[in-house]
């Protein structure tokens, strides 16, 4: 083993704790601010220790919303975000796994052109084609709908490539064995391939859920009704009014609530998260 003297180890621990402090500090401040009185914060007198308004602030945030700018309960925004994130994650996995199956396990005319059509979408995020996409979604009457929120974000190739790669590593003997058992293509997919893909699907789900929950530009454009707002859009609208009117404890409580689900997923499902992250980047 490479020698590692006590002093160097000590330095490493210190540097890591400094890193953790830098990473955690903004969030600590948000949590503290969400338990304090707005007048104190607005005066620049905010304390660095938690205050006593935790329950009333979070109650108002979740069930009532701000009194000035958005007037929409954050609980409802979270519900919208949840539906959008789940629709993106489940939708993308579902359409990708079957198209990857077709591309790997069948030979049919236009197989490669279709693969390339899907593959090229890897390159362009929704941000570079926002306006035309907006117009199409508007023409299809999908503004202010969950379909409009999620469908354009499902159009990408990462998951298809991932499943294709995985299917290529599945031994051919499995297919031959199930064919001897008299299984057709759908039976083989359902009974053999899907169970084998479970871990990959879970890892992908974790990543796609986080990405979906954190979408911002797209929901900002296509939601006009307050009751269709996602939490990321709602939090921005809370600070649009002039500074003096911003209800900071509620804004910070909303920030904490917006972080909670994805951070929880990362911490609790860390193994799947890391796996998903590394695999989608390949």
């Amino acid at each position, binding site marked *: 083993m490479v020698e590692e003297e006590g002093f160097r180890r000590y330095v490493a621990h210190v540097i890591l704790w400094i890193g953790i402090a830098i*990473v955690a500090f903004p969030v600590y401040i948000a949590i503290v601010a969400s338990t304090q009185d707005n007048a104190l*914060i607005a005066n620049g007198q905010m304390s660095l220790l938690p205050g006593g308004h935790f329950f009333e602030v979070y109650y108002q945030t979740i069930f009532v919303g701000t009194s000035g700018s958005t007037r929409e309960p954050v609980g409802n925004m979270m519900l919208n975000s949840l539906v959008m994130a789940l629709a993106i994650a489940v939708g993308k996995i579902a359409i990708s796994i079957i198209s990857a199956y077709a591309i790997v396990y069948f030979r*049919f005319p236009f197989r490669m052109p279709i693969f390339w059509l899907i593959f090229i979408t890897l390159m362009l995020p929704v941000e*570079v084609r*926002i306006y035309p996409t907006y117009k199409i979604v508007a023409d299809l009457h999908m503004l202010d709908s969950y379909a409009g929120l999620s469908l354009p974000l499902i159009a990408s190739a990462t998951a298809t490539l991932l499943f294709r790669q995985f299917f290529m590593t599945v031994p051919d003997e499995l297919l031959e064995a199930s064919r001897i058992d008299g299984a057709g293509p759908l039976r083989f997919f359902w009974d053999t391939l899907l169970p084998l893909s479970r871990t990959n699907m879970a890892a992908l789900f974790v990543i796609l859920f986080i990405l979906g929950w954190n979408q911002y530009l797209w929901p900002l454009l296509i939601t006009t009704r307050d009751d269709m707002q996602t939490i990321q859009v709602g939090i*921005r609208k809370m600070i649009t009014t002039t500074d003096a009117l911003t209800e900071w404890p509620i804004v910070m409580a909303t920030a904490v609530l917006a*972080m909670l689900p994805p951070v929880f*997923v990362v911490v609790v499902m860390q193994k799947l998260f890391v796996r998903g992250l*590394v695999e989608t980047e390949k």
Partner: protein
Amino acid sequence: MQKQAIFQSKLLPYALVAPQLAIVLIFFYWPALQAVIQSFLLQDAFGLSTTFVWFDNYVELFRDPAYFEAILRTFFFSFAIAVSSLSFALLLAVMADKPLRGVMLYRTLLIWPYAVAPPVVGVLWIFMLHPSLGVLSRYLRTLGIDWNPMLDGDQAAALIILAAAWKQISYNFLFFLAGLQSIPRSVLEAAAIDGARPMRRFWTVTFPLLSPTIFFLLVVNIVYAFFDTFGIIDTMTRGGPGTSTVTLVYKVYSDGLLGGNLGSSAAQSVVLMIMVIVLTGIQFRFVERKVTY
């Protein structure tokens, strides 16, 4: 890329690719094509008629000093965000790669900011560094710095870079740690036996072996700075003061949707598409080959 054992079916494969193909064609190719077409058209002020103007929108775009500034600014932001975030993350990863007690705990405590959405990052940082009520602004003022990112463009830019780099630390840390752990211990031991001290071992052995990871992360960070900073900018400065934090993506958004200049916005979209394609091309060409020197 083809299996030896396959199924025979005429219609089933088409049915299986149909959903994805439909979504990709409707929500990807159609709008991308629209952007290209739109970029060659000019709409009159009332939106009543459109004329085909060849490359006029592009010519006008590149003659516009504001667009040029936005390009330079975006590259500068990307560079600053990538360098600061990568170097700090590398330092942390090198520390966490040592055989320390509680390494798993450190890793957990360092990776969670990945999950914080850009607009939330913006809100967290503007709150801490808000000119009148931010907790950190007080200390900056006692240090004699006239801190007001709402008025000072350079300070606003610094704030965006800081917040964006903060969010990216966890991602970079995770990939650096994975890269470090894949370096064979025997190579480091050999260097140690040859008498190389830890610092020297890092620069002559670890760092060169890490170059594929560094290169990969560099591209990812630049793409991140191009696109994902939108949420941070929109919640913190909205491109201001003036245009001092307007990036290319922010300009597409504000010109097309707030300003109503569709032809120019479409031309900007096309320029961005080309830039992303080039970046992705670079990534595929070099990262796939696993650069090692």
